[in-house]
């Protein structure tokens, strides 16, 4: 019994390390490779190295590494929350896990069609990935969601799903759904193509604008305090007193609130678009015919 509990604890520690180590790895990598710079610094993701590819070189950037590490970290969190479930007494973390799963299922149930009952894990994965990717900027890392390539990839995945469920009754029905009034067919096709673009731009634009505004305000306050407090003797004149306070409040809004809101909206739009494009009546009719 004692060895069992010791083993349980060891696995627990392993999962916690799995949660924390990727983020530490990201920070170490950033500290080691970031070039020193003074003052204003608005740049894209750092390029760690490039892989030679036949058509075009593939640059491995900070945002890709960070998003992979966030995935590993979320996996560790999930394993930790559900570790030892079903054996013996339920612990607090098991209740937390059940609560989260119940919430996600409720969200899917209230927003999607009857056919999409088992979509909970996918929606939760998108929600968690987006939320944690935005929250990683609290550690001083580059948030992967402020890179259009990452968010564009998610939007393309969602677009493939939307198209699959639209065309589930055959290609003829899929083409027919565009020409409901025949004259409006080009507009319908344009709006269909605009879906992933607008989803990607909405998420990435929100996070990036928050980052840019934060950096601009911080730099402006630095310059202002240098101007006002320059009469102080010695090193006191170099301390940016005005930078205390306001950037933190901005960070609460832009990093925490805006990031979580965008994650929620991305998941919500995914559900609405997939469920909205699905021809439910036709599908049910076909199903009855087959039986």
């Amino acid at each position, binding site marked *: 019994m004692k060895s069992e509990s010791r083993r349980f604890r060891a696995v627990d520690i392993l999962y916690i390390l799995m949660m924390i180590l990727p983020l530490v790895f990201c920070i170490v990598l950033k500290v080691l490779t970031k070039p020193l710079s003074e003052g204003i610094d*608005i740049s894209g993701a750092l390029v760690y190295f490039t892989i030679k590819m036949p058509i075009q070189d593939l640059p491995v950037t900070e945002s890709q590494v960070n998003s992979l590490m966030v995935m590993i970290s979320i996996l560790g969190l999930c394993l930790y929350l559900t570790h030892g479930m079903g054996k013996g007494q339920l612990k607090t973390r098991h209740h937390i896990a059940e609560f989260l799963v119940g919430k996600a299922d409720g969200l899917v149930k209230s927003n999607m069609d009857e056919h999409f009952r088992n979509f909970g894990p996918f929606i939760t994965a998108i929600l968690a990935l987006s939320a944690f990717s935005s929250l990683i900027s609290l550690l001083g890392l580059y948030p992967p969601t402020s890179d259009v390539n990452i968010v564009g990839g998610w939007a393309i995945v969602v677009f493939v799903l939307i198209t699959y469920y639209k065309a589930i009754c055959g290609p003829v029905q899929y083409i027919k759904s565009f020409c409901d009034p025949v004259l409006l067919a080009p507009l319908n096709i344009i709006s269909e193509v605009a879906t992933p673009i*607008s989803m990607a*731009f*909405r998420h*990435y*634009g*929100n996070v*990036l*604008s928050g980052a*840019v505004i934060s950096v601009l305000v911080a730099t402006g306050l630095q310059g202002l305090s240098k101007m006002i407090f320059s009469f102080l003797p010695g090193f006191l004149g170099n301390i940016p007193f005005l930078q205390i306070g306001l950037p933190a409040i901005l960070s609460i809004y832009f990093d925490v609130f805006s990031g979580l*809101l*965008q994650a929620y*909206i991305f998941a*919500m*739009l995914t559900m609405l678009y997939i469920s909205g494009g699905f021809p439910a009546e036709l599908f049910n009719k076909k199903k009855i015919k087959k039986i």
Partner: protein
Amino acid sequence: MLEIAVGIILGCCALGAGAAMIAGIGPGIGEGNAVAKACEAIGRQPECKGDVTTTMLMGCAIAETTGLYALVIAILLIFVAPSRFVDILLTVIK
């Protein structure tokens, strides 16, 4: 002569970015209307405050999209376009 050309490119990029952000007026008015209506709805039926708030935030985020398109264009004009345009200018001169 080259300095003047590069200066014109940089200045026009900055002007274009500023002009693009005029689009921020639209989402501002739209979101203001949405929040005003949500406040009215909550005042009329305080019991459905949660539903109204989530729907309003959702609608606000979607209404923001047009403003964000303008923002993306402005960011491209400031951070990406000048170097591209200067490269094009140099290749044309050569």
